[in-house]
Structures are given as structure tokens and as C-alpha cells.
């Protein structure tokens, strides 16, 4: 784009000082994101910024929304609180639920701040669990020495009345407390989060945060390469190691700026004559790797963003997406169970099992390795069923270990549909099986396949 500035990094939301050539964009002003890592094009609706901004990387850094858990109490995170001289200050860390770990630090600091500023003030600190990260143990010790009264409670041992009186009841202790309550609020995703999920084509995560609970995304990756998540866009515990996570992210961005490689060697192409621009591929892609090519009026795969799961291929209604590789060519005519395994879970677990025991857990099966079980289409399964009389076992991933985020569920949908269809035709649906594993579940895999061989094959 001629004349447009090119930035190394675009901050969506709050900005942190860095050495990168960067730009800050308000989440509200952002309306679209096209392109891929190294070459994103952000469309903004802000008169102070150009309408189109080119950036190589993106950090979404939004504050949490705070929701009070005790009606009428002050927020522990609010620096402007008012204490009455004749009333104790009551810090409530974990009511009614446990707060994220970083809240311990905030609460300890707040209690010390009060005690230091007002030495005569009584300070109570109510908590369910104290998290000792970083220098929390020092702060805790300091707070105890300063005379702050720590009261640990379990669920049900602390109640708060409408007029803000606290009843603390634990074994032989019964206390009625009243005073200025500073309570840890419940943290919720920032209010623009849902919009941003749509703009960046990200899969919504736990409690509608932008990051799923997934080992491949930790600590700050989103499903889309080059898009990073911090604080209130990432998840409820993101502030605990905020500094480390920020450092990691900036390190990743520095690496990206020296070049990003494609993830696998296969070539995936969209036939522009067959593509009907139905957006199914765009909608199912867990990595935001597909966009429309306006010139061709066809969808196109962005090579650096694509992570090779093949979900777009298996779901394209017009079979317009092709790959120069066939995972299912050599279906076995012998009566060996066809074992379709994900290279990110079962294959790794099998290798681990082998190095642990010396046994080959996959021997005796016809093994078909796929980059993600979302590669599997209904037609593949039916073809395998027709090729011999053996069963088919698909070994996918547990949700948090699915490298392609939704692949495990997409495959489950395919398997469920096949079973439903087989049953409707009075065909044996019990020949098709689906199991979920993680790469760590080597023993489970070995044991499971050994039992399988014994029960089914022999």
C-alpha cells in the first residue's frame, strides 16, 4: 500500500514503551484485520490515524472489566478508597471464589499501604488461599509483623450481609466484622473482546476470553500467528506473570521480524473456479489463515498463517481446496484395524511409550498419521470401512492439547454424523471409534491399545 506507514507492532488497547516502531489503536476504532504475520493490514475508523495501517505483529492488550462481588464494597484494585478512622479496614481476597494469584500480591500491598499510612487502623485480611509468587512471602511476613490480622476461611465460613457486616465462623472462632471493605472484584473480559474475536477470526476461549486453555497457546499466543494476547484479552490469570509474559511476547515479535517460516511442506491451494466464496473455510479455520482474494473473487490461504490442520479442506462444501498429499491412499486391504492418529498427540505418546517400554504400541495396526484429526472427512471413513472388515479407530486430542484448537471437536462431529448415518442404514456403527489423548498420555495409549488388541483383534 503506497504511502501507508509500516509498523513493526500495533497495540490494540493499552501500549507499553518498547524499542519497536509501534502504533496504538483503540479497540473501538478497529474494524477489520486482513493479512498475516509480518504483513497485517488493520482498518481503523479513527480520524487521527490513517484508515489502513500496516503492521507486522499485533498485541491485544486490554484491561479487565471489574465486576463487584460484594454490593456496596470498594474494589481492592481501586487506588482511590476512603477509610473511616474509627472503623477497621477489611481486605477480602477470595470471596466468594478464589481470585487469580496476582490478586494476593495486590491485596498484600494494599493492606501494608493502609497500615503504613494509618498505623492505628485495624486491618483484617480475609482469604481462602495465599499464593506465594515472587516476593509475596516477604510481603506476607511484613504484613504479619505490622499487625495485620489474617483470617483464612473456607467456602461457607464467611458471609456478607446486605448492610455489609461480615460473619466469620471457623471452628472455635466467631467474629462479626464491620468496616471499610476492600474486596477483590471478579475479572471479566474487556467489553470489546467479542468484537475483536470476530475481527481477528479467533476462536473464543474460556469465559469468552480470546485465549483458549491450550498448551500450544501458552503463554500469550492466540490461534493466529503474529497476534498476541495480554491481560484482559487473554484470560483470568494473565496478570499473575504479566511482566514475564510481556517479555516473552516482545521476544517473539523480535524473532518474527527476522522472518517467519511456513509450518509444513505441503501445498494447499484453493481452486478459484470451484470456490463459491461461501466463507465456510474462513469460519472454521482455527488459525485465521483464510481471507478473500478480491481480485479472484475466491478465498485464499495465507501461507504463513496456515498451520496445516486441513480443516478447511475437509469442510469445503465444493471440494475447492486441494493439498498435494493424500493421507488415506494406502488403505489396508488386510483386516488390520485402521488407526488414524494425530501427529501431535497419539504419535508422540506412542514414541514415548516405545522409549519407556521398548514395545511398539502401534504394531499390528494400519497406521494413518494426520496433522490433525480434523483432516478426516466422512468419505475417508466410509472408504476405509468399505476396504476391509476391520474397525477404525481415530485417536484425536484432548481439548487443551489440540494444536489446532477445535480439531478434536470437529472430528467428533464427523464421527458422530457417520455413526448416525450408518445406524439409519442398519449398518454396523460400532466399527468406528474415537478416543482423545494428549502427547503425555503414553501409558494410557499403550494400555488402551493392548486391551484393544486383546478384546477386538484376537
Amino acid at each position, binding site marked *: 500500500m503506497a504511502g501507508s506507514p509500516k509498523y513493526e507492532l500495533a497495540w490494540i488497547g493499552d501500549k507499553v514503551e518498547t524499542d519497536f516502531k509501534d502504533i496504538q489503536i483503540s479497540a473501538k476504532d478497529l474494524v477489520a484485520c486482513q493479512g498475516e504475520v509480518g504483513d497485517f493490514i488493520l482498518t481503523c475508523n479513527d480520524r487521527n490515524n490513517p484508515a489502513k495501517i500496516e503492521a507486522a505483529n499485533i498485541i491485544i492488550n486490554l484491561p479487565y472489566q471489574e465486576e463487584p462481588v460484594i454490593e456496596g464494597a470498594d474494589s481492592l484494585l481501586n487506588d482511590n478508597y476512603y477509610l473511616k478512622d474509627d472503623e477497621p479496614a477489611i481486605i477480602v481476597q477470595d470471596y466468594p471464589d478464589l481470585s487469580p494469584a496476582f490478586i494476593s500480591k495486590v491485596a498484600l500491598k494494599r493492606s501494608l499501604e493502609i497500615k503504613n499510612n494509618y498505623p492505628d487502623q485495624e486491618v483484617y485480611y480475609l482469604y481462602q488461599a495465599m499464593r506465594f509468587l515472587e516476593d509475596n512471602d516477604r510481603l506476607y511476613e511484613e504484613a504479619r509483623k505490622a499487625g495485620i490480622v489474617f483470617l483464612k476461611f473456607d467456602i461457607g465460613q464467611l458471609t456478607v450481609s446486605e448492610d455489609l457486616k461480615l460473619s466469620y465462623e471457623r471452628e472455635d472462632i466467631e467474629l462479626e466484622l464491620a468496616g471499610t471493605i476492600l474486596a477483590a472484584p471478579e475479572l471479566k473480559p474487556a467489553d470489546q473482546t467479542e468484537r475483536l474475536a470476530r475481527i481477528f477470526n479467533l476462536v473464543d476461549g474460556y469465559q469468552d476470553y480470546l485465549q483458549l486453555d491450550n498448551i500450544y497457546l501458552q503463554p500469550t499466543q492466540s490461534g493466529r500467528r503474529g497476534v498476541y494476547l495480554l491481560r484482559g484479552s487473554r484470560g483470568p490469570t494473565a496478570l499473575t506473570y504479566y511482566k514475564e509474559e510481556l517479555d516473552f511476547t516482545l521476544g517473539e515479535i523480535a524473532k518474527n521480524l527476522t522472518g517467519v517460516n511456513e509450518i509444513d511442506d505441503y501445498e494447499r491451494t484453493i481452486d478459484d473456479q470451484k470456490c463459491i466464496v*461461501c466463507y465456510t473455510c474462513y469460519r472454521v479455520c482455527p488459525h485465521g489463515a483464510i481471507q478473500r482474494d478480491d481480485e479472484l473473487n475466491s478465498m485464499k490461504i495465507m501461507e504463513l498463517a496456515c498451520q496445516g490442520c486441513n480443516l478447511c479442506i475437509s469442510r469445503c462444501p*465444493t*471440494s475447492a481446496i486441494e493439498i498435494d498429499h493424500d493421507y488415506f491412499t494406502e488403505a489396508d486391504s488386510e483386516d488390520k484395524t485402521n488407526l488414524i492418529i494425530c501427529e501431535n498427540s497419539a504419535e508422540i505418546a506412542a514414541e514415548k511409550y516405545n522409549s519407556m517400554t521398548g514395545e511398539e504400541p502401534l504394531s499390528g495396526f494400519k497406521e494413518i498419521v494426520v496433522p490433525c484429526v480434523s483432516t478426516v*472427512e466422512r468419505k475417508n471413513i*466410509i472408504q476405509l470401512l*468399505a476396504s476391509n472388515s476391520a474397525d477404525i479407530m481415530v485417536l484425536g486430542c484432548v481439548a487443551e492439547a489440540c494444536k489446532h484448537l477445535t480439531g478434536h471437536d470437529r472430528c467428533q462431529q464427523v464421527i458422530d454424523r457417520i455413526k448416525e448415518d450408518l445406524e439409519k442404514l442398519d449398518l454396523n456403527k460400532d466399527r468406528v471409534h474415537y478416543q482423545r489423548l494428549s502427547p503425555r498420555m503414553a501409558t494410557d495409549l499403550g494400555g488402551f491399545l493392548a486391551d484393544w488388541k486383546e478384546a477386538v483383534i484376537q
Partner: protein
Amino acid sequence: MIVGKLKDVNEIKDSLPDDLDSLLIAGCGSCVSVSLAGGEREAESLKNLLDFYYQTNNQEVSIETETIKRQCDDEFLDELELAIARNKIVLSLACGVGVQHLAIKYPDKIILPGLDTTFYGRTSDIGEWEEMCHGCGKCILDQFAGVCPVARCSKSLLNGPCGGSQDGICEVDDDIDCGWQKIYDRAEELGQLEKLLDFDFPKDWSTHKDGGVRSHKDPEFFQE
């Protein structure tokens, strides 16, 4: 867009003659491909499933598939000619329009529907569609803040909701939003509530089903 839903495979199988020896499954590459019901992928999956069914039941049936861009226009049918010539029976995965267009063009063939054509709708989520229009022949969206009372009120009421609207939900089904709630909310947002105070006379349904089978001609292509 016309939305369709693939029929249950047992219903499809039951619609085929017992002595079937060959079958063409004809996919349609437009609307019903978008609604993931009648495109090449569905045609291929169905072929494999039926192949497997007949193989398991020791019946020799030759099944082929061919998917064309649209089954409702003559010009696209050329690509089907050879496959149609080879098969007496065609299972069309087009909407009801495409199925009948094939039947008109190939009167000596048995053209069977593989889909249920459901409605004119929009994609509301991945794999989910919502009815938006009944094709009533006289669009009144301008009067109702852009929300169609004919299609989106279960009773097609034009003068406000019935008594069955509760918390924005239609009494017909808990999964259906009350169309009139949507009309009200949108009109309020747009500052057009006064428009809803106009009394609507009974709609002229002669442009819809009451007027019989409909057709229309573009005057640029026809002389009086």
C-alpha cells in the same frame, strides 16, 4: 439465499427403487452448497455411503457424482449431459427449483430430491441458518425497521405481537426469538417507533400464494 438440508440417508435410500443398478448424484454448486447440503462434498460423501450400503447388501449398483454450478439454469446442464445419459435415475442435491428444472429438461429420467429445501435465510453461525424471508412478493421491510413480520413472526402478524411473546421469546418454541420484539427493539434504536403506530390493513396476499403460481418478466427483455 435458498437454504437446504440433506434428507436422512435412509429416506434417500428408501426413495430409490429396489432394483437400482445405476445412479447419478447431481450436486448443485450455489445456494445449497453454501448451506453445506448439496455441494460436491455432500455428493461424494453420500456416494461413498450408498456404495458401502449396497456393497454390504451384495447389490451391484454403479453410483457416480457430478456437481455443476447451478441446476436451475439451462446453460450449466451441458456438464451433466453425459452423466445423465448413463443413468436412468438422478438424485438431485439441488433445491426444489433445481430438481424440477432437471425434470423439465430430462423428461424421460426419474429425478429424485436428495434435499429438503427449507427456507430463504442467512448464515447465523458456522453451520447454522436462520429464516429471513418468505418471498411474499411485496416487501414491507421499510415499515418494520428492517425486520420482516411475515417471516420472523411465527404467526406473520402485521399489527404487533400476540399474547404469546414472553421475554423476547416466541410461544411456538423456546428457540425462536419473538419477531415483534426484534421489530420493536430495532425501531426504538432507530427512533422509528411512531412508524409502528400506523395501522396496517390486511396484507395483499395475492402477490404470495393466494395469487396462484407466480412468474414475472423483465420488461427490458419483453415487448408488450
